[in-house]
């Protein structure tokens, strides 16, 4: 039994000492059943981090899901207010660590927009290629974990096998595997490694044979489809109203791919399809991500052979001071739309910097779509949402 907390007081529940279950309630049958609370997390195998969900459950049926956040909150937004813009880029790695490159890019693009710097074509193309590699790596990890959450442990190792190859490419180019810090305002830290193009091509050839393997192992599995089809259905209206983005929104037919709607970097010159499914269930979200991996490979293939020559960085002042004003830039991370809002007063620090993180908005839907579902459904739905907790907590 968890200790009596302020939440119980908020719920107006009278707790009697010694009773394990709270809030007695008679359902419309002859049995007296009791709802009770279960803490899922902050340390739980399915929570993928320190997400704490307070479940009100009646047997196996979920009555209410209440997220309790803040276990890994570092107040990055407050830290940004005292840091220079170059330093802020490095902080963003720690938000959504699975798409760290794209987070870096978001801040860099905002600063470049404010300074009216036009980066070279080479920078744009390299940024796009690495963004898409990051997306594949993130989805590989998600795929492994999705399988694990619905009980198929083997997928984890298959996902990690392919992710390792991408991480190796990153390591060779910029020295880091996860928190890359490859972007700086005005361009890139340094040029790509000579092996980069070859290894990326090797990876694409390899992954094209391995992605169908994913389908054979998990997608076509009857049990998996039974576990995910019709589970956690999110309608398009709700998807828009709840401000969801990324694969969660696109699984519900809400076409909000930032790469399509608000072009940035080199996305305006590549041809790719926006993965869109209309069922809105966990399986649709699953299919969106699988399709996104195919599309990401398509984008990389279009760009990898024709990386233009050019400068790697456009020189900026050592101390970047943004002109007075407000700047907003959105990018598409592996989890959805990341927005960076910078309010500058003309000094070397932002007056206010807000990260609109995709996970936070997506999390708000969870309670809405899992009411009345089973515990197993909640786990499958959460897996299809692909939460990264530092992204929610920032």
């Amino acid at each position: 039994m968890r200790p009596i907390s302020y939440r119980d007081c908020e719920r107006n529940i009278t707790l009697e000492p010694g009773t394990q279950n709270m809030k007695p309630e008679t359902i419309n049958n002859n049995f007296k059943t009791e709802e009770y609370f279960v803490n899922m997390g902050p340390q739980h195998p399915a929570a993928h981090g320190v997400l704490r969900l307070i479940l009100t459950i009646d047997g196996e049926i979920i009555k209410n899901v209440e997220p309790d956040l803040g276990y890994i909150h570092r107040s990055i937004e407050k830290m940004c207010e005292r840091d220079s813009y170059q330093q802020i880029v490095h902080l963003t790695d720690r938000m959504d660590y699975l798409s760290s490159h794209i987070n870096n890019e978001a801040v860099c693009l905002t600063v470049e927009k404010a300074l009216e710097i036009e980066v070279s074509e080479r920078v744009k193309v390299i940024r796009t290629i690495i963004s898409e590699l990051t997306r594949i790596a993130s989805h590989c990890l998600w795929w492994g974990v999705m399988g694990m959450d619905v009980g198929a442990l083997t997928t984890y190792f298959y996902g990690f096998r392919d992710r390792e190859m991408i991480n190796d490419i990153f390591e060779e180019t910029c020295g880091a595997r996860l928190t890359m810090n490859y972007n700086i305002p005005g361009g890139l830290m340094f040029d790509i490694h000579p092996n980069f193009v070859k290894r990326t091509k090797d990876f694409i050839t390899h992954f094209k044979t391995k992605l169908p393997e994913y389908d054979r192992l998990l997608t076509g599995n009857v049990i998996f489809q039974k576990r995910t089809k019709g589970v956690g259905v999110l309608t398009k209206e709700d998807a828009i109203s709840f401000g969801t983005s990324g694969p969660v929104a696109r699984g519900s037919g809400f076409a909000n791919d930032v790469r399509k709607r608000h072009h940035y970097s080199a996305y305006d010159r590549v041809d790719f399809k926006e993965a869109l499914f209309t069922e809105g269930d966990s399986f649709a979200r699953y299919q969106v991500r699988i399709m996104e991996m195919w599309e990401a490979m398509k984008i990389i293939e279009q760009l990898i052979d024709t990386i233009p020559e050019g400068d790697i960085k456009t020189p900026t002042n050592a101390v970047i001071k943004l002109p007075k004003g407000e700047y907003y830039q959105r990018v598409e991370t592996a989890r959805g739309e990341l927005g960076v809002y910078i309010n500058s007063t003309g000094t070397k620090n932002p007056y206010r910097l807000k990260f609109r993180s995709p996970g936070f908005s997506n999390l708000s839907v969870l309670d809405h779509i899992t009411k009345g579902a089973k515990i197993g459904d909640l786990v499958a739905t959460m897996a299809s949402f692909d939460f990264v907790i530092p992204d929610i907590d920032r």
Partner: protein
Amino acid sequence: MMMIPLNITKTIHDWLYSVMPENAASITEMLLIAIAYLALFAVAGLYLVLLERKVAAWFQLRLGPNRVGPFGLFQTMADALKLLSKELTSTDKTDKFLYNLAPFFVITTSLIALSVFPFSKQFQAFDINIGVFFLIAVSSIGVIGILIGGWSSNNKYAMIGAMRSGVQTISYELSVGLSIITMVLLTGTLQLSEIIEIQRTGGWLIWQGHIPAIIAFMIFMIAGTAETNRAPFDLVEAESELGAGFHTEYSGMKFAYFFLAEFINMFIIASIAVVLFFGGWLSPFGITEGITWFPEVLWFLIKVLIIIFLMMWFRWTFPRLRIDQLLTLEWKYLLPINLVNLVVMAIIIWLNLTF
């Protein structure tokens, strides 16, 4: 067993009866056999764990344990030693008596069930004429251990796990029982040694009973996997939902008992399948029939290991079912099919259509 060990057992038997009064000698002999079985199957269980880890590694592009001993052969021994030496912790509000009783319940029932299996012609501890009935009866006691373990832990995850286990085992017990009964119709006896004798002349039962026997085997494998609470039916300890399920609060050797029992149960289910469908210790096509020195137990073990491998294959390939899907599968599909299958088998035997 081989001739030489047989002679040893006979020597011991004669010696015991020569030095002791008859009752004392028989009790001592039973104790000796019990200890021998305990030792044998504790080790067998440990090696099943190792096998599972190796198989899992093979499925998952890994190497598996390979550091302790040659090919990691002593890995699970070391694990068992570690678990033995660990402190037995428990929470304050557990029901102490039931909490401590539960693991023994589980492991004891598993070991009791082992006693009736004919591992070879001579290697059978307890050849009773209601062997199959005894097996069904004993193997369903284990769930009580899981239930009281989950209940007495005073942990909500353990409680949910235990309740799931109760629901699951009671449901799938029916299918296991009915598919066994289907085969018993064919043999006309419940004694396990006789069931094997029947297969010596008429071919394995899965051949004798053809279509209904194959259906019965498939149902038995599904229900048997569910009985042992293994994936894809491992809702009891679904780690992504319930942490560790009913044994969340157990540590050290008490946890090891639950763990070992799972593997011995798997061995039991595979053994039942081998005896009832694949001719027990009989060699395929009688190839070693005439060779007197050939250890028949080897055939038994090979067949059991093949079936165990099948169950491991399930585990490392399939996702887990949800609780309502689990019950739907049993009550809406397996049970009706099984009942029809039973009638079909009866008709086939009546019309003499068996091979």
